């Protein structure tokens, strides 16, 4: 049974992806994607029902699995090498060779060449990731179906390239599931590189100069991370004499060489999670169609980066390296949120916010107390749902209003009431209690209280986040309409993922104590057992449910009171000089001409401008990474 579920979760997407590629029919593709999405979601829930276990599948369709993956690994690297040679890109070639050669030597000199037992381990962290990937990711794939139809119409393509698109989109889910389930670190490495390739293909999907350049940049940066990961694996094997991640984590003190390995793995995580100074690939990835951004940001790719660091976090908890990691993560959280403040491009705001939130997860991994790790894990879940939702919202908005600038979304409620409200829900779940992201942040701050620089950075980043999100949600509802707005028309496959994610974000937050008890708490056993802060101390159920209910009752009352308010409709105050209908406020200006009122947000380019800040911040980030590496050597 377990093997079947794992088979569905990891291998099925590969098969479905192949079908999407090979069969050009749109109807078949639609069916395949929908069925795969449903099966993945169901299988992940089934896996959740079974709880933690370990498995060692020996073979796949009669072939020995370990050898198969080794083979696939080299094939994959050769494909990437081929891309590098074809594009005559020196960096891709060099970075691939830097992986290929050490990996080949390592594989050849590996003394025990047998399979690692267990090859796959499903524990709380893996389950969290699998649920996020298989449910949020699947919803994004479903959303992509109508989205890509409209997208290709918009681009006036002669022949559809959707087959290729869905091949990589669905493959991505399988690769991610494989990565988080793998216990053999070489397997994890294979899936890791596969996500790099998928992201490259998806970012460059639309072709064109910008898309290609950004795709290549993403590939180069992630290959750099790949090199770090290969080196990390080699060092790790040198230190621990095992390829089993679980064995490493439970081994206890391992000596300096292991810390070098952890530093390299953290560096790999930093590249994949687009932490400063590697943020540019994720920002460039916005050129891709929106479902790609949604997938990269919420459930796959960047989450792989924080996953691998969180996975090893118990092994280096409490060390100088961990402290440095926490500071680097906190730094990214603070400054990436600050950079988001300087942006008016909705997707860029989301991208910086993702980078920042992942920084917070990195900081949690660095703090390493049970409470911090719990916060990090909860963050992964709630961030994935809310961020996936927000990306889809921006995509839906962009297809309707033709802009992703938040200033153009002013008064969106008048045009797209349903989407506007869902976007506000998404933002509120990112920002305010009693929703999960904030609860995780609360835990993170409490856990960081012992680490002064980190807590200062988190406090500052958290406040910057209020500005970033608050103004966005606020202007969406900036309505001058006096009559009731009618819900806009929208394809069902666009609408349902939005509605499900919005509902999911709210319901999941309500179930936070249950999520904690079933997924996070079991992870806190073993080497990192101990008090897990306020959320765990029996408080969760006694606090969160009543708080949620009180606030929900208040919200409900407010909704009813506001709807039933028998209030006369008011015009806006314009010093008595208002002119024109209340729907489009204007005041009487020179020559008795009406001047339409306009307003804009504060973006403070002189403080938070990207052009000014990016270089110095990258320098600081590099310095922090160097210090982190130094911390590993202590």
């Amino acid at each position: 049974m377990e093997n079947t579920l794992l088979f569905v979760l990891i291998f099925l997407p590969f098969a479905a992806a192949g079908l999407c590629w090979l069969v050009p029919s749109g109807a078949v593709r639609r069916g395949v994607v929908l069925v795969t999405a449903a099966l993945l979601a169901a299988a992940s829930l089934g896996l959740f029902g079974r709880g933690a276990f370990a498995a060692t599948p020996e073979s796949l369709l009669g072939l020995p699995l370990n050898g198969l993956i080794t083979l696939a690994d080299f094939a994959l690297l050769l494909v990437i090498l081929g891309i590098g040679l074809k594009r005559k890109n020196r960096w891709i070639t060099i970075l691939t060779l830097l992986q290929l050669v050490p990996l080949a030597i390592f594989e050849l000199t590996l003394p025990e060449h047998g399979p690692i037992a267990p090859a796959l381990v499903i524990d709380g962290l893996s389950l969290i990731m699998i649920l996020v990937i298989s449910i949020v990711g699947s919803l994004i794939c479903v959303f992509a179906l109508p989205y890509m139809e409209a997208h290709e119409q918009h681009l006036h393509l002669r022949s559809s390239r959707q087959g290729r698109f869905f091949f990589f989109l669905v493959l991505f889910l399988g690769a991610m599931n494989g990565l988080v389930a793998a216990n053999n670190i070489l397997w994890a490495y294979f899936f890791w590189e596969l996500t790099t390739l998928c992201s490259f293909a998806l970012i460059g999907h639309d072709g064109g100069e910008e898309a290609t350049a950004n795709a290549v940049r993403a590939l180069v940066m992630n290959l750099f991370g790949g090199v770090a990961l290969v080196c990390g694996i080699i060092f790790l094997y040198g230190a621990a004499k095992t390829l089993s991640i679980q064995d490493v984590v439970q081994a206890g003190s391992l000596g300096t060489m292991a810390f070098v390995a952890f530093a390299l793995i953290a560096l790999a995580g930093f590249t994949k999670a687009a932490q400063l100074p590697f943020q540019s690939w994720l920002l460039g990835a916005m050129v891709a169609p929106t479902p790609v951004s949604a997938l990269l940001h919420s459930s796959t790719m960047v989450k792989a980066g924080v996953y691998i660091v969180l996975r090893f976090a118990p092994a280096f908890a409490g060390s100088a390296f961990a402290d440095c990691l926490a500071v680097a993560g906190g730094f990214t959280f603070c400054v990436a949120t600050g950079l988001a403040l300087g942006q008016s491009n909705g997707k860029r705001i989301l991208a910086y916010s993702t980078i920042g939130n992942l920084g917070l997860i990195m900081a949690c991994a660095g703090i390493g107390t049970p409470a911090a790790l719990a916060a990090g894990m909860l963050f992964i879940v709630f961030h994935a749902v809310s961020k996936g939702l927000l990306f889809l919202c921006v995509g839906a908005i962009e297809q309707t209003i033709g802009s992703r600038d938040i200033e153009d979304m002013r008064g969106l409620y008048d045009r797209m009431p349903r989407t506007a409200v869902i976007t506000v829900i998404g933002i509120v779940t990112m920002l305010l209690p009693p929703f999960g992201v904030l609860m995780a942040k609360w835990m993170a701050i409490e856990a960081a209280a012992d680490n002064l620089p980190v807590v200062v950075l988190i406090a500052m980043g958290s406040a910057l986040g209020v500005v970033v999100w608050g103004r966005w949600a606020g202007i969406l509802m900036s309505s001058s309409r006096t009559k009731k707005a009618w819900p806009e028309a929208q394809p069902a496959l666009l609408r349902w993922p939005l509605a499900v994610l919005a509902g999911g974000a709210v319901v999941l937050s309500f179930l936070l104590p249950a999520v904690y008890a079933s997924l996070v708490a079991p992870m806190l056993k073993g080497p990192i057992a101990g008090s897990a802060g306020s959320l765990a101390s029996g408080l969760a159920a006694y606090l969160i449910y009543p708080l949620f209910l009180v606030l929900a009752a208040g919200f409900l009352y407010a909704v009813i009171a506001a709807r039933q308010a028998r209030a006369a409709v008011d015009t806006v105050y314009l010093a008595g000089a208002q002119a024109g209908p209340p729907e489009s406020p204007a005041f009487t200006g020179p020559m008795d001409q009406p001047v339409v009122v306009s307003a804009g947000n504060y973006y403070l380019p002189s403080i938070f401008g990207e052009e000014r800040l990016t270089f110095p911040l990258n320098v600081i980030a590099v310095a922090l990474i160097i210090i982190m590496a130094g911390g590993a050597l202590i």
Partner: protein
Amino acid sequence: MLKDFIRSSRAKSPWIIHFDCGSCNGCDIETLACLTPLYDVERFGIVNVGNPKHADVLLVTGTVNHRNKHVLKNLYDQMPSPKAVVAIGACGLTGGVFREAYNVLGGVDKVLPVDVYVPGCPPKPEAIIDGVVLALKKFAEKQQAAG
């Protein structure tokens, strides 16, 4: 009981908005003098606000002309009821010495229903305070009449 408290509170908390409709500033200075320590209208809960949406009493000084009558009307319309209007000074009452001018409409009551007229050129602050207090009484009566 709550209703009684609200009703009695009305007279105790008149927030005024002052609109200079085209005054020579004589009346304006006297009006603002009410807020100084010498007269201290805050004793009666009177507060000078800058936003008609927060105001209960509209104090108008100066003549109404064709250009600013819209503004006057708009400000009055944006005040939530119950509300009262106090016209201050000779110009506010009738247009004063300017009433024959080609651009002048006349007193405030050409545009708004005025509750209290405070004569003078300019009126003394005491007279203005009296006018506001009288206006409050008037709208309390109006409320009573309306039930």
